């Protein structure tokens, strides 16, 4: 069939931002291909969920509702998704690159023998009408464009915040299609059971912060990272980190910015001791203004910075704090 399907992640009917972002992107892809944009929602307590999806342009909303489908379990969600894709034969299928999407999408792609590209930072329709799945590769040292010439659906996952989230001007007069869960799911799909679950909404909001002070491996240690928090406190900013800094234990994973972390678009991005691998810059290159503080004048990030302060983070940050205290009104 001629459609794009977005798997819409949800918690008791609350649709995840990443899925709304994918619908927004899916709409422009569907426009290019002249095909439909559809949404699949699997879970519990889904009454009325279709209205929000129509507002993001979904033509048909497929709903599979059953108390056992929330919280997410791999096998029943995979069975429904695989079953629906077999019937619908979508051209393209999009998933959030979340704990759920990255668990589900590969399982689905394997069953359908279709190609899947993880963590895309850009999706385009090429002149050949194929989906161009663009992502950094090899630790972010190259950018690869991946295509699936012969297999359908063309599948991709995208991290939250990478695509913009925009409702349509006029909600689509969409169609609701209820899927009969028993047709897709068997009791044996519930063989893995959840014993305990502790989900916390992250208190760190780097996505929404207008100013971000981010540190890289060059900051040197967890103790020295405290300086970034000092500056952030003064500026009313949030603290972010590169993957290298997170891997080294300098900062919490929730602060990671980049392809495998969060994508941000702040007014001001202060990069402290960050070299600027594409893995990182993919998540911050749309910042309105970038200041790079680095001892290495040749650091790649300096080429995209508006201001480069050549110097040691430990020397420069206290001076910035002092300058702000002197000049702020």
């Amino acid at each position, binding site marked *: 069939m001629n459609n794009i399907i977005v798997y819409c992640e949800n918690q008791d009917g609350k649709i995840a931002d990443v899925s709304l972002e994918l619908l927004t992107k899916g709409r422009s892809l569907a426009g290019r291909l002249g095909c439909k944009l559809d949404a699949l929602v699997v879970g519990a307590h889904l009454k009325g969920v279709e209205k929000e999806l129509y507002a993001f342009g979904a033509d048909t909303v497929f709903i599979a509702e059953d108390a056992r489908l929330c919280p997410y379990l*791999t096998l029943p969600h*995979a069975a429904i998704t695989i079953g629906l894709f077999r019937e619908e034969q979508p051209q393209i299928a999009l998933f959030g690159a979340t*704990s759920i999407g*990255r*668990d589900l999408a*590969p*399982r689905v792609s*394997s*069953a359908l*023998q*279709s*190609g*899947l*590209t*993880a*963590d895309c930072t850009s999706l385009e329709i*090429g002149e050949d009408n194929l989906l161009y799945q663009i992502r950094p*590769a090899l*630790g*972010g*040292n*190259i*950018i*690869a*464009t991946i295509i*699936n010439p012969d297999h359908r659906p063309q599948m991709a996952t995208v991290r939250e915040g990478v695509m913009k989230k925009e409702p349509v001007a006029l909600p689509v007069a969409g169609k609701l299609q209820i899927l009969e869960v028993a047709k897709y799911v068997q009791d044996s799909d519930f*063989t*893995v*059971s*959840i*014993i*305990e*679950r502790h*989900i916390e909404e*992250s208190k760190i909001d780097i996505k929404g912060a207008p100013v971000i002070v981010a540190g890289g491996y060059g900051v040197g240690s967890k103790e020295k990272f405290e300086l970034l928090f000092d500056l952030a406190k003064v*500026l009313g900013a949030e603290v972010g980190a590169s993957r290298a800094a997170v*891997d080294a234990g300098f900062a919490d*994973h929730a602060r990671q910015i980049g*392809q495998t972390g969060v994508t941000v678009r702040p007014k*001001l991005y202060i990069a402290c001791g960050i070299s*600027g691998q*594409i893995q990182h*810059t993919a998540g911050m290159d749309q910042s309105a*203004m970038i*200041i790079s503080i680095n001892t290495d004048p040749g650091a*790649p990030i*300096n*080429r*995209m*910075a508006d*201001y*480069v302060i*050549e110097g040691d983070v430990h*020397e420069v940050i206290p*001076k*910035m704090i002092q*300058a*702000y205290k002197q*000049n702020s*009104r």
Partner: protein
Amino acid sequence: MYQKLKIVVLAKQVPDTRNVGKNAMKEDGTVNRAVLPAIFNPDDMNALEQALRLKELLPNATVEVLSMGPERAADIIREGLFRGADGGILLTDRAFAGADTLATSYALAQAIRRMQPDLVMAGRQAIDGDTAQVGPQVAEKLNWPQVTYAEDIAGFDGDRIIVKRRLENGVEQVAAPLPLVVTVHGSAASCRPRHAKRLMKYKKAHIPQWGVDDVGGDRQQYGLAGSPTRVKKIENIVFQAKETRHLSASQEEINGLIRELINNHTIG
């Protein structure tokens, strides 16, 4: 509790992309693999540790390492032996070349069928691709359930294995039956070091190799032929040229910058 438990750990030899130097890219924009050290994929090390812990818990458990790659990837299996694994297999054959995650999963699943383990453990993802796809794809090919992002194997409840999962916004404890595929998160315990006596013993250990003929299956599903994805284009990283102002770290110049940012309402 399982009296016997056969565990296969999936491990990949990867270029160390975390320490990419300036000469990592050739002039033509392709990757200079020769200068990137080949290492045991970090998450797979975490998986090996979880497998070795189960081996300690269950005296009759065995741990084998399965890797796919060129002949030099036998080093990965020896590395596993140095740290406590009982054996391993290297899947190597020209027919496997050019495989994407799906064709890789097919080959691994074929080998796993022949090895007949109760439990397959793998790192969540490899640092050269960061896709996290092979674990779930192998599970699907075997028609086994999967538990991804494991941080700790908490033990057994009867014949079910209890796994603590690390999610992006919390933790979850699940019970799962065997056979099972578990992918292990990088936040799980680090792998124990090499054991000196084992290092001496296995330094030159012969690693059995399997090719397409050893694992059978549908030849069309191996290597490039079995890969639905194609690389259309590879670009070297070029940052957009932007007008950049360079400042020294003097207090005066920093004062000037901060004043400017306050005046144009970027901060303050």
